């Protein structure tokens, strides 16, 4: 899930005329995670599965995983930090991109 994707960069010849978007609902193909500077890391041991991070995420970058816990979809997470702020058990820390 944490495999990180970059948005495809179209060439001039690949753009539809006037860069019109002919396919509705295609924003899922635009990986907004590639301009994030910090990312949330969820400590699964601390996570109680309360879902507040999922509720508060202004995108849909928090996803439910097996065992009733939560994880981050880094393709869309912009690193706003709201999930870390709202987590009642402080299971989420924001880590600078480039660091482990």
């Amino acid at each position, binding site marked *: 899930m944490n495999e990180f994707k970059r*948005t495809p*960069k*179209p*060439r*001039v010849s690949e*753009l*539809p*005329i*006037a*860069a*019109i*978007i*002919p396919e*509705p609902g295609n924003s899922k193909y635009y990986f907004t995670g590639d301009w994030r500077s910090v990312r949330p890391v969820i400590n699964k041991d601390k996570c109680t599965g309360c879902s507040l991070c999922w509720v508060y995420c202004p995108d849909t970058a928090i996803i439910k995983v097996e065992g009733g816990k939560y994880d981050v979809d880094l393709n869309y997470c912009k690193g706003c930090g709201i999930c870390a702020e709202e987590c009642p058990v402080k299971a989420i820390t924001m880590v600078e991109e480039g660091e482990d």
Partner: protein
Amino acid sequence: MGMECAAAAALAAKLAMVDVIAAYPITPQTHIAETLSEYVANGELDAEYINAESEHSAISACIGAAATGARVFTATCGQGLALMHELLPIAAGWRLPIVMVNTNRSLSPNLNIWGDQSDSMASRDCGWIQFFAENAQELFDLVIMAFRIAEDERVQLPVMVNAKGFYCTHVIEPLIILDQEEVEKFLPPKKIQKYALNPNNPTTWGCVAFPDVQTEIRKQWDDALRNSIKVIREVFKEYGSLFGRNYDIIETYRMEDAEVGLLLMGYACGTCRVAVDTLREEGEKVGMIKLRVFRPFPFDDLAAASKNLKAIGVFDEAISVGGVGGPLFGEVRSALYSLERRPKVLGFIQGIGGRDIKVDDFIRAYYEIKSVLSGEKRIENDFMFLQVRE
């Protein structure tokens, strides 16, 4: 038949069977909008006529209508074109085949309703095809051809047909018109473009483009405008073969053995031809280069017309204030700069705010060019105002 130039432009739009007209009255364009609204009111033209509350709204309505696939016409000038400015690149960048007649009017200040090219020059980077008409006949023909060029699948760009306010709007001139059948043969009913707005097939237009894609969008648009010159040439040729009136990107007059070319666009070409004839009688080797197509800029045609010349005098009815001089002069000089043997290019500003351009003005300019060529005189920054009291 005799017809007012503005009425000729309106008749051309009627014969093109436009679906939508959105306009706001402004002198000296008003007769075009008035004539078209009469056609619609009388039931002579089955079109939607939108009385907009401003030019900003008029062009916005045109964009919306064209995005649904309609054939759209508008007309404006001067401050009206300036008020449209925000939307002009959107019409072009969205590749909408709108046809506009801009009756060149001097931009304020000072308040001046008369003709010069300052309005369309301020819109030159908005990505429209731009033609300049000299008289009623050319205006009529160019409007009909503009629809065909704008709608060509290889082009899909708006076209602005410029005609000088009053001189080419209010004057009554002889005109050969086409009948409906002839126009339809040349200009078939408009095809609806592939991505036209349609609730059954939703598309998104003009959505946000991050820095990672805006460059490609611009390049696509620039390629389209640049490549349209082939289609323009092709359509001009076809029109000529059908109706006998031949147009080209650039037209030359008595240039065969000329050493000096006088280069200009629009209405004043007629006066310039008389000046060329007069100078030829005096034994001067001079001719005229008339640019009909300003956008896309005709680099190759201009280079061909400038071959073997010692000098070109470029006549602008506008000035890039504090810039290189007249905008046309700046572009011509820049386009010729990389030629191995390039002529001296000098700029002359005249006809500002409707000041009459006389035969003597061209003759005076010609002798200014000659005195620069002989080394007698130097013109600061290579351009000068021709008709100014200093």
